[in-house]
């Protein structure tokens, strides 16, 4: 346990620059979004923006369009903007494929030649992915809070803490879900690029599936296969509660990925 904690601390130290930089950028994005939302709100531009929205986008967003085209909606955008989701998932995939990277460069040989059980490698990676993802979301939420304090116009309605928490939790689980998938692939791979690339491609394909299914009815039949189906921020910003199903499915995929990683890594040959 002591050795596993040591390895975790070492891994955390190695990724600290990446994590802090990404976290600060995501937090800064929240500030920028709130600043922009405040400016639009002050100039009364939300009504005009709503009118400018093309019909297909209205269809895609449904009744939530009105809520989205508001100060509160733009503030929440920081939790489902494509670049934000992409950055979080990419970071999770990178961290989750740490074992593959260690096998690839040969560092795993030196670690496992010591009295350290293989399952600690996966436990360390799960802890690393979870802690760093939580840190990202914490920084984003801090960014939101600071941004609202600094840039929210007087009298404007803020998004509720419950809404922000729900978005963060749902987004966090989506991130962990992809971390779990990448970890399972990475636990059986000799190359981080292969594991990360496969997980990334899968994420992109399932994102497209979810997106297409929203526009094209036949794709709806298989859209349940996409993890992105279980992160529906528009439902949340229209006031619906965070569905338990989303949490169970995303958490379940993450746990299944972690379990698969334990089994695959325990059975594999370590060779680079």
């Amino acid at each position, binding site marked *: 346990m002591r050795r596993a904690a040591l390895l975790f601390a070492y891994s955390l130290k190695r990724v600290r620059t990446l994590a802090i930089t990404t976290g600060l950028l995501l937090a800064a994005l929240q500030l920028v979004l709130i600043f922009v939302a405040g400016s639009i709100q002050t100039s009364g531009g939300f009504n005009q923006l709503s009118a400018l929205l093309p019909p297909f986008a209205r269809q895609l967003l449904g009744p939530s369009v009105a809520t989205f085209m508001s100060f509160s909606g733009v503030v929440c955008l920081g939790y489902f903007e494509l670049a934000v989701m992409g950055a979080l998932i990419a970071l999770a995939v990178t961290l989750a494929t740490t074992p593959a990277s260690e096998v690839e460069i040969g560092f795993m040989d030196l670690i496992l030649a010591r009295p350290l*059980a293989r399952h600690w490698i996966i436990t360390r990676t799960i802890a690393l992915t979870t802690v760093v993802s939580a840190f990202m979301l914490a920084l984003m939420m801090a960014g939101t809070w600071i941004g609202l304090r600094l840039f929210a116009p007087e009298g404007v309605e803020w998004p509720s803490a419950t809404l922000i928490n729900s978005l963060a939790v749902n987004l966090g689980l989506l991130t962990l879900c992809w971390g779990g998938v990448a970890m399972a692939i990475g636990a059986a791979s000799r190359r981080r690029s292969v594991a990360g690339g496969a997980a990334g491609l899968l994420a992109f394909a399932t994102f497209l599936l979810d997106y297409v299914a929203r526009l094209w009815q036949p794709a709806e039949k298989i859209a349940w296969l996409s993890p992105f189906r279980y992160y529906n921020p528009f439902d949340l910003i229209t006031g619906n509660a965070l569905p338990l199903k989303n949490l169970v499915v995303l958490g379940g995929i993450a746990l299944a990925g972690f379990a698969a990683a334990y089994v695959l890594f325990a059975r594999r040959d370590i060779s680079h």
Partner: protein
Amino acid sequence: MAPISIRGLTKRYGNVLAVNNLSIDAIQGEILGFLGLNGAGKTTTIRILLDLLRPSSGNAIILGHDCQKDGLQARLNIGYLPGEMGIYSDLTGREVLDLLARLNAQMIDKERRRELQERLEFPESDLRRRLREYSTGMKRKLGLIQAFQSDPQLLILDEPTEGLDPLMQESFYKLLVDVKQRGRTVFMSSHVLSEVERVCDRIALVRKGELVLLSSMEELRKLAARQVRIFFSEDVPVAAGLPQGSEIVETGPHSWNLKVEGPLGPLLRALETLPVQDMEIEEAKLEDVILKYYRDGKQ
């Protein structure tokens, strides 16, 4: 209890047989050279000992513990030098040594590390540098320090002198002698025959995954043929009845050139009646024996 006991070890990769029914015992306090050409199965065997690879059949026991079933206990007292030091290049040498030391079961004696640094000429200033600035030789020296620093009962070294300059090789050989004198066992793979001849007590030679020779250096020397040149005071025709193990390589004016395997006594007796003026005996070359096994496999 043998520090290493390998029994019927086999490792297959699909149709490829990397290690085939290998059985070796290392003796406490010896330096056992593990020889073979590239792809002979040396590294595969070492990786099975460390439970990095899982054998298809057979088993390996280190210091009384099964490498697979009881791997953690087996690895409690091992120092390992991999063939390539795979370390993140953004770390400093000190960070590497500290991390690997803390992952060990035993406490690291700082004095021991300092001594190793001195012997391998690895100053503190080098330890403060990042690995990306290290040469191949420096990485190798760092690898040796991390393997030796916990003063383990068993050292498993994969091609330890690869990348070391001759002076450092010399320091390394002295280090080996020291650890051996302290009763530690060394299992080292190598394909540098002169090195093996110099430092090893015994050798295990593998060819295409199979053990073709397990012998002490003394026994091996007996197997090696000596070059014997005999000078006569007059031309002597080649005798028909040369003893077994003696073979004429060439004849010259007043001389014979022979290859003699085993003891020289029978040849000397055969020469008793001949007008021998002088004799030159060239020391047996182990390389010849080993190369023969490399080429032909089991004799």
